[in-house]
């Protein structure tokens, strides 16, 4: 065990995997000079050389396309696309090639590539550097989607993603890089697709992931003091998501709230709510709800950006309304 930041944990995971498997390598812009925008590649070029920590031209299409070629030919590339916004510059390669190659070629190849794209708001990065696009990738057959929320998961899930034989969209949150916590540095990575119950509760199931986890836990704390016990589930893997954990919880609590930083309309919360409603309609005590950003581009100015964020207060108020509404109508 060691205490380290989310960025350090990510660096350690990649380092360990590169030591373990010579086929693992990474490519992207500016990985060498200062170890990436958050230091998540710090010192790795020194250790593994310029052929395994590859500094690339500003060529997102080819960064992605070449990684696909390298993946189907026996290596395991880790692609750094920096911001999820720039991930859109490689959307064609991700969707039309990486996600489909195995299927289209009738299983002749696999595409073991990790596609790192940072998501979320941070400090006025504005409309072109703040998006959370996880819903897009969940919709695309062939992709696995992972979003770690803690230093421990930053370590463990990156390792798991690197060992996955299929393309993994791996979304790190900009605001989490500097958070720190305990990391079991010797851990064997857990299988992808498992959620974690971060807090147990009986009154309502709150499903979240990535950058919203701290706010959700804080809200749960506040609510606990007011007598409402919220079960907080950190989804960790968005595709495939952990139905057993979520459904098991909702079946007990009868209430579902999904919280994410992405735009609410068309976000992944819609899928979770729709699927849960289809499967557990009879168990629901009130309408499942979703909280997310309004359907506006992310503004630069601080007070406006703040309004786009789901706040702890909003979570608390929503939970109270859901619990109260159910209380007033009683079990149906």
């Amino acid at each position, binding site marked *: 065990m060691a205490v380290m930041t989310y960025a350090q944990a990510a660096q350690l995971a990649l380092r360990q995997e590169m030591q373990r498997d010579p086929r693992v390598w990474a490519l992207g812009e500016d990985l060498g000079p200062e170890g990436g925008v958050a230091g998540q590649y710090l010192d790795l070029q020194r250790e593994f050389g310029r052929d395994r920590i590859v500094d690339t031209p500003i060529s997102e299409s080819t960064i992605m*396309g070449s990684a696909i*070629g390298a993946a189907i030919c026996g290596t395991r*590339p880790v692609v750094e696309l920096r911001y999820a916004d720039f991930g859109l510059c490689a959307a064609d390669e991700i969707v*039309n090639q990486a996600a489909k190659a195995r*299927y289209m070629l009738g299983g002749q190849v696999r595409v073991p590539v990790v596609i790192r794209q940072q998501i979320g708001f941070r400090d006025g990065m504005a409309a072109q550097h703040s998006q959370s696009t996880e819903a897009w990738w969940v919709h695309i057959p*062939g992709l696995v989607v992972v979003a770690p929320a803690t230093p421990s998961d930053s370590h463990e899930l990156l390792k798991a993603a690197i060992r996955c034989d299929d393309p993994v969209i791996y979304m790190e949150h900009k605001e989490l890089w500097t958070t720190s916590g305990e990391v079991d540095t010797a851990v064997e990575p857990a299988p992808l697709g498992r959620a974690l119950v971060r807090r147990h509760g009986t009154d309502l199931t709150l499903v979240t992931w990535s950058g919203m986890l701290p706010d959700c836990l804080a809200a749960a704390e506040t609510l606990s003091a007011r007598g409402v016990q919220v079960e907080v589930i950190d989804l960790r893997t968005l595709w495939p998501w952990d139905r057993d954990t979520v459904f098991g919880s909702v079946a007990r609590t009868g209430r579902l709230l999904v919280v994410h930083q992405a735009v609410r309309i068309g976000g992944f919360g819609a899928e979770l709510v729709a699927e849960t409603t289809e499967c557990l309609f009879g168990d629901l005590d009130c309408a499942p709800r979703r909280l997310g950003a309004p359907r506006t581009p992310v503004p630069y100015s601080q007070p406006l950006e703040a309004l786009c964020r789901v706040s702890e207060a909003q979570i608390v108020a929503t939970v109270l309304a859901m619990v109260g509404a159910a209380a007033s109508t009683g079990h149906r």
Partner: protein
Amino acid sequence: MEVSVERIHGMFQRMLLMRAFDEHAGDARRANLLRGSVHEYIGQEAIAAGVCAALHDRDYLSSYHRGHGHCIAKGADPTAMMLELYGKAGGVCGGKGGSMHVADFSLGILGANGVVADGVTIAVGAAQAVRLLGEDRIVVAFFGDGALNRGPMLEALNWARVYDLPVLFVCEDNGYSDRTRTVSVTGGPGIVARSEAFGIRTQSVDGNDLIAVAHAAAKLVAEVRAGRGPLFLHATTYRWRGHLALDKGLYRDPAELEGHQANDPIERVVAWLGAHGVTTRTIDADRREAVAQIEAAVAAAQAAPLPDAQALFTDVQDLGAPAWP
């Protein structure tokens, strides 16, 4: 570097196979026996034949939408390919890919591709894998003249040069990008100037002249193998058919087509082989053999079973069910 008559004869046989394959594929598509987009390679066969003859089985090849010829030239089984076009379970991709995704990984064929230029970015990545794994292979990327206007193609040229990758780029310049004359949408001095601007030495060749292509390819492939890549081969040619089987090509002057048909790459090899002692009888036998082989492939394809329903759900990805109840 001298290429023997025997080897040219072998390439010629592959060309006949490509021609027979696509004669059938085009007709079958027009007869609605096949589905989707079928892009015939007819008229361009000398390029695939000449280039692939210089390759080893272990070398990688990436192709584009007009990909049947490259697969055959690299040695793929025409029967398994034909099954693929007929959407059958035994097809090279289990019937799940179709004409635009034919591939045979056991022969290093990374696949045809439905997105212009994407196969080229994949090819430079394959070369990076070769480098990283310390393997003795090279990569050949085929693409059309239209691809030179797509950003990813141009990025990939830069990429190959930056990392000095063992790639041979082969541009099959048939003058058209779909129904548009490529020259009308391509600025500046042209394709060769572009590849050279990225520091990639480029050679032009008459792509309808098998002997010329074979010589050029043998030299370029040897250079790439020796670590002097990336290099670029610009081969001029013409496609006889429409852009795809269902395109009648009405935007072209019939005289233009006739002129090019008179320059049939197959008949040019026939003449050369004749001049080098191969008899008409042998050549006629070759022609019959190619047609027979494709007829057999078609018969096999038509008789073969369609995929089982459960194939829909295999090879999507290891994790997660493709369809929840």
